[in-house]
């Protein structure tokens, strides 16, 4: 027997129910920004599965104050799939080789536990230390 499709009205209703729950939890106003690299090499390396695992893990922990975005390659094609995490009180970090298992570690250790997942950091490991004012300190300066 054919399974029923969810309608747009049903989707809207579910959204309204969740909106109410979110309004209470988001009172702290702090937000987390996560960008998944979805260029050709990212997709070939499993970025779609990384993105799905990320949404599922954030949902599991009811982390509602998180924006998930998609970009092209983050410039680290040798380390795909890649993911940038920005959040208050933590340095911005680009993680590499982010399989679904690593996604779960990043959510649990970085986003919830506020500890870096060292062995998957590929860029900007400690921007709060490496940045002098608004100017990044790079080799040769």
């Amino acid at each position, binding site marked *: 027997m054919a399974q029923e*499709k969810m309608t747009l009205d049903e989707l809207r209703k579910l959204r309204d129910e969740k909106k109410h729950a979110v309004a209470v939890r988001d009172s702290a106003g702090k937000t987390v920004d996560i960008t998944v690299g979805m260029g050709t090499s990212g997709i070939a390396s499993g970025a779609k599965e990384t993105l799905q695992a990320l949404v599922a893990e954030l949902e599991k922990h009811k982390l509602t104050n998180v*924006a998930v975005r998609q970009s092209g390659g983050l410039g680290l094609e040798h380390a795909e799939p890649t993911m940038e995490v920005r959040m208050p009180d933590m340095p911005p970090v680009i993680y590499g080789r982010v399989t679904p298992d690593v996604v779960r570690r990043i959510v649990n250790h970085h986003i919830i536990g506020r500890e870096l997942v060292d062995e998957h950091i590929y860029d900007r490991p400690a921007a709060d230390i490496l940045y002098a004012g608004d100017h990044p300190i790079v080799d040769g300066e």
Partner: protein
Amino acid sequence: MHWSIADMLLDLVHNSVQADAGHVRIELRRSDGEMAIRIEDDGKGMDSHQQVLAIDPFYSEPGKHAGRRVGLGLPFLVQTVTTVDGWYRLESEAGRGTTLEIRFNPDHIDCPPMGDVAGMLAAMLTFSGQYELEFHRSVRASDTDTESEYRVSRAELLHALGELETVESRSLLRDFLHSQEAHISSV
């Protein structure tokens, strides 16, 4: 190389969005022994010289990535389709947009799997930027001669969900798209 047809299509749609397409239309029609796919955008388009270069894997549009010499989205798909005795047609006009049509036998022994269509569509719908994306998928069952289909529009989903970036919206979108796919495969 991408693992599935769905990943190849996702890559192409990402290219469309990057090429400033305001409107992308995608059709996936499966019937007995044939998969017909059409992707149409109103992005930057290509002149005839660029069209030849676009199916060359060792070419990438200058300016898109400084220093990069390869572009693989379109060549992956064209190579796959020709490998499985399929057919493709690329039509494009600079400043007007691009249309790609492909047909192939999805049961050909060398054809990659279709892959996760719901996941592909979720990712296609949630790139940053303002664009409309219309998606139409139909499957015709030859034994019962019945057709099952669904249509999705990014504008309608944005209207229903408000935005497509938060975890709540993305998880609801995922459930919505899975229910459309489950309906198709249950017919």
